[in-house]
């Protein structure tokens, strides 16, 4: 009797996991597209400075490990000014209070980008109390000046 119950449970668990993994594939693709869109937008904003030789922009990939999405490769952007490099790196699609987190960091300094459910990016300090401001060319500029200084 107990074995039958366990079997039912395992069947249900398997069904749930199968449907979830299908959803997760879609979620991961959508997340990677959102990361690429953001990195494209940041690159566009920084293109004038890069064209002038003030910055170097380089794309790469990192391995992200998330419980929900598993292990996957995600794009990163490196912004170099002289010897200083700010990395714009995806941290997780699943984040509390948002639908994705990307960190911008240089050494111990960092800024956090949280994607809202309305697909906007909020730029803030790592402090949970800091709700941040919407990412714009202006707020990005302020963040980069902080991180590169």
């Amino acid at each position, binding site marked *: 009797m107990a074995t039958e119950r366990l079997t039912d449970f395992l069947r249900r668990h398997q069904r749930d996991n199968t449907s979830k993994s299908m959803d997760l594939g879609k*979620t991961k693709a959508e997340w990677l597209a959102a990361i690429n869109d953001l990195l494209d937008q940041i690159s566009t904003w920084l293109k004038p400075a890069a064209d002038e030789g003030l910055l170097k922009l380089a794309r790469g990939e990192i391995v992200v*490990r*998330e*419980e*929900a999405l598993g292990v996957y490769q995600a794009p990163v952007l490196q912004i170099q000014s002289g010897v200083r490099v700010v990395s714009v790196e995806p*941290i*997780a*699609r*699943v*984040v*509390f*209070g*948002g*639908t994705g*987190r990307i960190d911008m960091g240089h050494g111990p300094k960092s800024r*956090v980008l*949280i994607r809202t*459910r309305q697909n906007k990016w*909020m730029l*803030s300090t*790592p402090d*949970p*109390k800091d*709700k941040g401001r919407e990412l714009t060319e202006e707020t990005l500029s302020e963040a980069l000046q902080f991180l590169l200084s």
Partner: protein
Amino acid sequence: MATAPRDIWLYYNRSLEVLALVESALRDPDIAAAVSSDSPFYKMTPQQLPDVLKQMATELALEVSLALVASFEAILRIDFDRQVRAPATGSKSVAAANFQKLWRTHGVRTRLEDLLDAWRAAHPGATKVVGDFKGVLKWRHWLAHGRYWPQKGFAGFDPYTVEKRAKALQKALPSLPPLVDW
């Protein structure tokens, strides 16, 4: 009105279950995304959650331990008060006689440790369990005073230690009012 140890124990177990439920629920991407930006969890990832919840469970255990020992203290003091104020009829137990001596010397300022020593003197076979319970009192003292001195001799103490030692005390001192009734 004194808080019943049973209520504190129930609170502890419910709180532990809530922490486990939170950990489970927040693994769901939709629930995680719905966390308010006012939340102290805002911006955290599920990978960071176990450490935070472990810290919360550790702090909860300390706070519950303090409350639990305090509730036992209330029971012991109420019983002491009842015994010393009881009309002097017939022969008193050894413990009650010891309580009278304490009352005459210290009155309401009688220390809980002295009260336990009075119990121990009346039940020589209970020396070890009374000593163990006094160890829990030292821990309560450390907790109640802001944990500002080095924590020595309390390694691994938690609400289960308190429960176990209170149960042992209750078993060794049958005339003690019930401490652990769950």
